[in-house]
């Protein structure tokens, strides 16, 4: 049923004919026949029926024929495992052939035949070949160990092949060394803790010697392997760097990038005042620049990596701005990357040139490129204060072009400039207002509305302008609606007499006529604020905004460190850690840069390294736009002000890191709070402010508001107490997790049960199984007075550091306020990690289900569930568990379902529902079977709620 052949079948007549030819006595005819078979195979025809006949041709002294038969075997052995055994004898014989080419061919092919039964027979020949006198055979055998390990790891370990492979690192032939290193690295990758590559100064020395002699590819394997080593001290680090730098002159770009990786990593250990450190920095620039003359794809990889390098060590390329100027014939992906790097390198010294270039680009035709160029001008203004004025006038020039998307892009960035330099450039507002009508993109409209609202007192006709937007309120995107609501409230607070009607209009539009819960919530809050305490409203809505900071789009420091360790690889191209895109990367190891050499001691401990990195004051970041889930009271939607977590005392930061990074177990006992008991607890009460008496006709509205808060769609467990007040000096935290509109949120109620006011809240997560991390700071804008509660929604992302937890969905959290730092742990329902595009195609599902070994399947019972299969399917869909197919066999419904976790792991499920039987059976299959238990719990929770 799952075996729909993808290949067109060769018609029976043709097969018959080939069969006859294959069995012919004439050598030439035989060979021609095998060629025809391979040709059919190449175009995707199924010629597996000829298996025995082709295998019969294997015993030949004709090398070309032999190669073809081997090729055929590699393709079809897996589908015909029993017959593949027939080939074993010939393989074993060929492994002893006097011609090394044939010995190597046999051992290479055997490794490619991924049939379990054959592997046993492979061991003896492989053992001989690993000790063969001919280096060509040895280098092929070395790779074969990695192949065999991929099929049957246990066997390789039992047979002692790993030790033989390690011995080959000392082989006299450089190519053998290189392949042995490659094979060991590959094996080590799947066994992070095996300590296979126990690199010590002796082996390092051998590798460095082989580096000078082996092929370009071998050099890459060796350099990539060296990058995993942590030198003992700065002297060793320097001596390795000295021996690696000559590779920067290699013609192959990949060799250069791998060498750059080693140098960037080991440089961390060199004291900055060392002369050699400066020399090394100088040596790195020219080869990086030369990479830009390579083929466009290699340029792209180089640029993505340079982007990381300039963030880590801006001094390397600070004088090389010109090489990043865009050429007319650069492919678009190269252009966009160059632009990014130009902004990063922009400084007072070169800003004039950069601006001239950016202005040139802004008149190009490629829309994406032009937009990015305009945005870049704004970023320059924010980054280089001295240039702000020039940037603004450049932007005004561009607005005069009246090219629609240029104008819109310019307005978006000018808004940011206002935020950075308040009371400086507001004179341009008039020009901006002229272009109001041409704005058709939500982001630009929202930006313009923000400007009008923020500077309402300086714009005579602000009320008219905002009113004009109000007409089509319901056609606007949420972003614009929210902004409009806020802007009109601001206007009202500034000019209350003339705008009462307007504000009532917008409040009723937002609260009564809208389906959007965010909009309604915000509407209610404003309404209540305005009706209860206008003075407070003024304080909240017109509060002074913190300045946005200069550096933009920086990669978070720990991630950057990890990416630097992956220079040249896909991770460095995606700017994502490998764990984010490599499926089932079990026990992923996060690479880190070695600690800096200053202190000298305890360099081995990876934690000190990261702590040092973090303490370098995390730079503030403007997150990408569209983050609608910022706190309701954060009035300026884009870009939300995130100056990192509110400035914590660095002592606390360090302390927290240490505790969380190191011996967690001691904490867990102390923290282990209330997860089990919590499930039954009633949902947390409405926050105190909400239950206060409401004036006028707002009571009924409030009731409505109560309903809005209910979870819609995805299942979210009720709030439970995570941190009891007695353990946290009066701070009580209860909370839950939810997934709303594709965003994972942590929803918390903070209650102050102490006698004094609490302020300065901040939150941090420990490393966890899925890299959950706060997407922004904890937004508690007002101090929390005694006996007051506040509801906080914290959007989360999954790009944080990863560490496997027990149980898998355990999350350890540190919350800080002005009193102390508190720790607790909680468990999140894994269903909130199920992403929206988790529906597999049917075909893929079938293939994947078959492909995942049966060992990975787990079965569970869900008791006492009274839904029928369709209702269950609907309910599950709300939590992104998608039903792909349904079959009914003898009154039993079988639902085939799929879901995908944020880290790309797929889980496949078969849910069996028998009419009238309240007990479901569920089978889960996943390449990472550890998640099954949690997935099952989520099923149970979703179905029963």
């Amino acid at each position, binding site marked *: 049923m799952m075996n729909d052949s993808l290949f067109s079948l060769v018609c029976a007549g043709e097969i018959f004919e080939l069969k006859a030819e294959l069995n012919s006595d004439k050598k030439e005819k035989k060979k021609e026949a095998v060629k025809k078979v391979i040709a059919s195979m190449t175009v995707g025809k199924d010629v597996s029926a000829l298996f025995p006949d082709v295998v019969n041709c294997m015993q030949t002294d004709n090398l070309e024929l032999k190669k073809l038969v081997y090729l055929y075997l590699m393709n079809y052995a897996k589908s015909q495992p029993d017959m593949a055994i027939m080939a074993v004898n010939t393989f074993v014989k060929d492994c002893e052939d006097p011609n090394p080419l044939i010995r190597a061919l046999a051992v290479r092919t055997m490794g490619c035949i991924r049939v379990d039964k054959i592997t046993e027979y492979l061991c003896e020949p492989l053992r001989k070949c690993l000790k063969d006198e001919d280096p060509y055979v040895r280098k092929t055998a070395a790779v074969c160990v990695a192949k065999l390990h991929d099929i049957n790891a246990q066997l390789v370990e039992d047979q002692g092949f790993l030790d033989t492979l390690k011995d080959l690192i000392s082989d006299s032939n450089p190519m053998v060394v290189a392949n042995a290193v490659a094979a060991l690295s590959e094996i080590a990758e799947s066994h992070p803790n095996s300590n296979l590559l126990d690199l010590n100064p002796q082996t390092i020395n051998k590798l460095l010697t082989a580096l000078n002699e082996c092929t370009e590819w071998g050099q890459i394997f060796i350099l990539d392997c060296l990058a995993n080593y942590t030198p003992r001290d700065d002297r060793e680090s320097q001596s390795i760097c000295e021996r690696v730098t000559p590779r920067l002159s290699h013609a192959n770009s990949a060799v250069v990038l791998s060498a750059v990786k080693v140098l960037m990593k080991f440089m961390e250990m060199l004291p900055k005042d060392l002369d050699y450190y400066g020399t090394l920095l100088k040596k790195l620039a020219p080869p990086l620049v030369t990479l830009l003359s390579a083929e466009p794809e290699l340029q792209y990889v180089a640029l993505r990596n340079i982007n990381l390098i300039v963030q880590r060590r801006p001094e390397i390329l600070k004088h090389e701005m010109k090489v990043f100027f865009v050429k007319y014939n650069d492919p678009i992906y190269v252009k966009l990357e160059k632009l990014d790097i130009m902004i990063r390198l922009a400084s007072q010294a070169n800003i004039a040139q950069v601006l*001239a270039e950016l202005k040139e680009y802004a008149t190009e035709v490629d829309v994406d490129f032009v937009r990015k160029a305009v945005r870049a001008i704004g970023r320059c203004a924010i980054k280089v204060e001295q240039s702000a004025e020039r940037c603004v006038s450049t932007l005004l020039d561009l607005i005069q072009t009246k090219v629609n998307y240029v104008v819109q892009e310019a307005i978006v960035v000018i808004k940011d400039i206002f935020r950075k330099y308040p009371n400086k450039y507001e004179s341009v507002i008039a020009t901006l207002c002229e272009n109001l009508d041409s704005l058709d993109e939500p982001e630009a409209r929202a930006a313009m509305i923000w400007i009008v609202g923020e500077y309402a007192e300086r714009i005579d006709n602000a009320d008219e302008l905002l009113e004009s937007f109000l007409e089509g309120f319901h056609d606007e995107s949420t972003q614009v609606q929210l902004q409009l609501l806020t802007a009109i409230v601001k206007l009202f607070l500034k000019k209350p007499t003339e705008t009462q009607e307007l504000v009532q209009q917008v409040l009723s539009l937002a609260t009564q006529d809208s389906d959007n819960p965010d909009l309604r919530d915000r509407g209610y809050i404003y309404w209540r604020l305005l009706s209860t305490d206008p003075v407070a409203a003024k304080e909240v809505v017109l509060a002074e905004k913190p300045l946005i900071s200069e550096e933009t789009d920086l990669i978070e420091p720990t991630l950057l460190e990890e990416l630097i360790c992956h220079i040249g690889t896909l991770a460095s*191209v995606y700017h994502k850690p490998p764990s984010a*895109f490599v499926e089932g990367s079990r026990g992923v190891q996060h690479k880190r840069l070695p600690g800096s050499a200053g202190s000298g001691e305890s360099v081995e401990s990876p934690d000190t390294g990261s702590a040092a990195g973090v303490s370098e004051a995390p730079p503030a970041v403007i997150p990408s736009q569209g983050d609608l889930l910022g706190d309701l009271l954060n009035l300026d939607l884009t870009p939300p002000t995130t100056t990192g977590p509110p400035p914590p005392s660095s002592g606390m930061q360090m302390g927290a890191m240490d505790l969380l990074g190191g011996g967690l177990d001691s904490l867990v006992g102390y923290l282990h709070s209330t997860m089990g008991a919590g499930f039954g607890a009633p949902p947390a009460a409405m926050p105190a402010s909400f239950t206060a008496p409401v004036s006028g006709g707002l009571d009924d509205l409030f009731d409505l508001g109560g309903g809005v808060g209910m979870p819609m769609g995805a299942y979210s467990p009720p709030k439970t107490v995570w941190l009891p007040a007695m353990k946290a000096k009066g701070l009580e935290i209860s909370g839950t997790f939810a997934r709303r509109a594709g965003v994972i949120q942590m929803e918390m109620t903070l209650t102050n049960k102490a006698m004094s006011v609490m302020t300065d809240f901040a939150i941090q997560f420990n490393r966890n199984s899925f890299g959950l991390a706060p997407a922004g700071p904890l937004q508690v804008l007002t101090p929390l007075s005694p006996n007051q509660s506040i509801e906080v929604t914290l959007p989360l992302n999954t790009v944080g550091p990863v560490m496997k937890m027990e149980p898998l969905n355990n999350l350890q959290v540190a919350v800080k306020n002005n009193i102390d730092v508190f720790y607790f742990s909680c468990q999140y329902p894994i269903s909130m990690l199920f992403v929206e595009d988790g529906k597999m195609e049917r075909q893929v599902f079938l293939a994947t289900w078959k492909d995942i070994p049966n060992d990975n399947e787990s079965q569970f019972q869900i008791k006492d569930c009274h839904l029928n299969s369709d209702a269950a399917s609907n309910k599950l869909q709300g939590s992104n568990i998608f039903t792909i197919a349904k079959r009914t066999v003898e009154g039993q419904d079988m639902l085939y379902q799929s879901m995908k976790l944020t880290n790309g792991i797929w889980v496949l499920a078969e849910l069996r529902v028998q009419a009238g039987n309240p007990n479901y059976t569920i089978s889960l299959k996943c390449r990472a079977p550890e998640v099954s238990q949690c997935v099952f719990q989520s099923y149970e929770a979703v179905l029963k709620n």
Partner: protein
Amino acid sequence: MAQISKIFNLHVLICRNYKGDVDMAEIDHFMPLLMQHEEEGLICPVMSHGSVHFMWIKHSNLYLVATTNKNSNASLVYSFLYKLVEVFTEYFKELEEESIQDNFVVVYELLDELMDFGFPQTTDSKILQEYITQEGAKLEVAKTKVPTTVTNAVSWRSEGIKYKKNEVFIDVIESINVLVNANGSVMSSDIVGSIKLKTMLSGMPELRLGLNDRVLFALTGRDKGKTVVMEDVKFHQCVRLSRFESDRTISFIPPDGESELMSYRINTHVKPLIWIESVIEKFSHSRVEIMVKAKGQFKKQSVANNVEVRVPVPSDADSPKFKTSTGNAKYVPEKNLVVWTIKSFPGGKEFLMRAHFGLPSVENDEMEGKPPITVKFEIPYFTVSGIQVRYMKIIEKSGYQALPWVRYITQSGDYQLRTNV
């Protein structure tokens, strides 16, 4: 890296699964994915579908695609794909659909030898040709042995090469890259040099190349004559990099036949050798008038050959009229260009070209880019940087005398002058 496939349109020509961790059917997602990216104008050399990542390059009308589900070394993958193109081109002259189909047996053999389990192996086509031949049928088994070269430290040259007359031809080629702003200021300029060898030497000769390298002169305390500062030098596999790093000696055993020994980049401010001033006036709905002045800014004794000045014109221009003080102007409508060709352009001279085009009264409302003016030329017997081959020492144990021949040429590289229209 799991597999390399070559695809033509929707149809996979040939593929090789090296690791068995990516389903061969995954490649079916490639073309739709590429088309989707193209439509969105976000073409990118890396694309992913589910857990599979595609890294691809395009060669004429073939796509060479590598697939992986690991965190592979991306730069290695692209280097390897370009190496594949190089090897196949050396084997089949052209790499195209037909040459793959006609030679699929050799292609499979090569794919087998070039990479094993995702690790690139022997990729030197000269060495490969010694044991993987297109006339495999004619070879007896006994003859087909692995050349020891494959695994030798000197993996690029076979033993036992013989020539009657021992000679080396050295070509020093410098390409000028220039980017000039519309207002005539030079935004960036550099020289990319390349030293190419054609080696016809017997045995295993040791070669040493001497250049007027400033760093070397400084090291040896010599300071006579003109020297050159090379910003970044890249060498062929054969050059002993650690030797160069320590005492700037370029010593090597050369590959046989043609090869690129080294390349270098010089970041000095070069005066653009051919300077272009242009006035392009566009009168909407009626005409475009172009005036281009070209000036040779190099020594009077030198001559630039085959100079081509390519001036962009609007795509809807018609009825071209030209006037030139020398050379020939031609309208190339399919590229929206006027190409002004001057066979021989002596240094210090100045030439003029005028062109006139009509424009339709109904305007093309599609936005057009602002392509720059580009220039092509070559100037023999001359290098801009002043780099010189001071000596080439050739030592072979049989003690033969060999002659080095040196040629110099300067040519245009990426030579762009932005216009104001």
